[in-house]
């Protein structure tokens, strides 16, 4: 019964990991067989690759800013929603439904909304006498614009927070208010401790998602630059504007599938593997805490 899944793990997970490791020591372009070149891919990666540093820093930027901002906004909205009495279903839907919009659609929509020429956002800002910035066309603001998008689609983690907030036993609030705790003290001593597991969960999955951040950045670059998106081969659009949206995952794609340097791209992938593994090991320890014990 489980044989297909075991085969799947071997063919689509264990083998590719080992093959990636082997390719990373070779020069390989898919046309001719891989040729062993020792550590040359790695020395190039760490000393000469002109963009890998930029790509790694951009990815780190998303880890450091996007993940916490998303969590804090989701928590704030969940905190407001948990106190709503009337029309709860409708309120929740308003904040949840954007999470269902396909990522490509939400990115295209945001690039339109924020486009400097005719975008509604800058028009609304204009009404208030503010000259809107270039958003997705400004290297300094392209990443923050994507953070705004990530907040708009935060419904999935918001729902998890909301479920956890609804789960706090009411007796705890009653008991603590009998003991004289005020609202702020209740938040710190009752609500937050109850939320620690889901906050950790959201943090770690958020970091893992940020490490592989690809679609939103790639599509935003393609649409904002007005050029056809990265199809076969790397186009000038990737990382637009000015490499500010070039993430590490995209760099693997460019070197591998744009330049057909499968050996070098594998070396890039192995570095990502090491970084991600460290985080995964950390997460594995946590996952144990979420596994429900058998109800018997």
């Amino acid at each position, binding site marked *: 019964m*489980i044989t*297909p*899944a075991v085969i*799947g793990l071997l*063919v689509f997970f264990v083998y*590719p*990991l080992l093959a990636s490791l082997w390719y990373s020591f070779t020069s390989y372009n898919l046309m001719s067989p891989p040729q062993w070149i020792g550590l040359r891919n790695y020395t190039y990666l760490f000393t000469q690759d002109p963009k890998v540093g930029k790509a790694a820093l951009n990815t780190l930027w998303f880890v450091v800013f996007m993940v916490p901002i998303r969590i804090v906004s989701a928590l704030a*909205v969940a905190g407001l929603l948990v106190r*709503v009495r009337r029309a*709860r*279903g409708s*309120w*929740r*839907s*308003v*904040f*949840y439904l*954007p999470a*269902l*919009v*396909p*990522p*490509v*659609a939400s990115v295209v929509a*945001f690039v*339109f*909304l924020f486009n400097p020429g*005719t975008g509604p956002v800058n*028009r609304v800002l204009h009404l208030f006498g503010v000259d809107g910035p270039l958003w997705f066309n400004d290297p300094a603001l392209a990443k923050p614009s994507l953070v705004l998008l990530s907040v708009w689609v935060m419904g999935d983690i918001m*729902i*998890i927070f909301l*479920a956890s907030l609804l*789960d706090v036993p*009411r007796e705890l609030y009653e008991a603590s208010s009998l003991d004289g705790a005020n609202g702020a003290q209740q938040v710190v001593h009752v609500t937050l401790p109850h939320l620690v597991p889901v906050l950790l*969960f959201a943090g770690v999955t958020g970091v893992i998602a940020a490490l592989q951040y*690809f*679609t939103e950045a790639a599509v935003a670059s*393609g*649409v904002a630059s*007005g050029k*056809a*998106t*990265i*199809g076969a081969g790397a186009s000038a659009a990737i990382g637009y504007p000015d490499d500010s949206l070039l993430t590490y995952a995209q760099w*693997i*794609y460019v070197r591998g*599938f744009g330049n057909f340097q*499968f050996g070098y*791209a594998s070396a890039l*992938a192995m570095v*990502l*593997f090491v970084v*991600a593994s460290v985080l*995964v090991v950390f997460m*594995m320890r946590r996952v144990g805490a*979420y*596994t*429900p014990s*058998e*109800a018997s």
Partner: protein
Amino acid sequence: MTATVIEATAQPSPLRPEARAPRRTRSLGVWVAEHVALVTLAVLFVAPVVFVVLTSLMPAEQTLTATIWPTSWQWSNYLEVFRTVPLARWFGNSALYAFGATACMLVSSVPAAYVLAKIRFRGASLLFGAIVVAMLLPPQVTVIPVYVLWSKVHLTGSLLPLILPNLFGDAFSIFLLRQFFLTIPREYTDAARVDGCGEWRTLLRIVVPMARPGIAAAALFSFFRAWNDYFGPLLYTSENQAAWPVSYGLATFRGVHGTDWSITMAMTVLVTVPVILLFLFAQRVFVEGITLTGVKG
């Protein structure tokens, strides 16, 4: 993306109203402040949808002006999308990808999750650990050798490299289903075995009916992931426009077909609507499943 997801769907859904919030007396000031904040945020969250839909109905020239309300309602923009690109075909590809991947996933992952949840065997924890790691690792780590494999069997240029692997289990789905199966009391499966049921029969007759909401959730996630996928189609189909799914076609739309925002927004709406409809429909299925089986995650 772990058990918490199940709780979020299988418990009284947090999307649905229920009366459990702490009911305490609060001052009017706090009430007003909270509602001002909520209404402001709600306007900000709904505004993108309103602007996108209004723009999708504008005459093309109007998207370059400052008026936000359409001067005339151009429902034909939606037809124009179908005339500009082979959208019907792309929708078909998306449906094939999403339904195909989900069906393949269910056939392989439900039995695998059952084994991991209900049968004790040597190496079970090692196997489960491997599945969790496979689920968490970025796909870019393994993508190159997998691509080489598919190119050796000449299946690149189609969506098959994205559908077929699901026949061999999908790590995230196995994880999700296993968490759900664990909540079914062992007495049920034990009783079935005592009555002489084999493992397949126990799975199909006892576990699957009881776990319907969980299976529906896993299927829905799988469907959404395929429908929304961009990286996979980019890798395998970018050179063959006839094989593109809608999400990939949308990403290339504006670059290839000029800067006409009204048509682009019409296509954005078209790509989004099926997902929203499916969710609204499936929400009922979840709730029904929970009430019918009496099993709660």
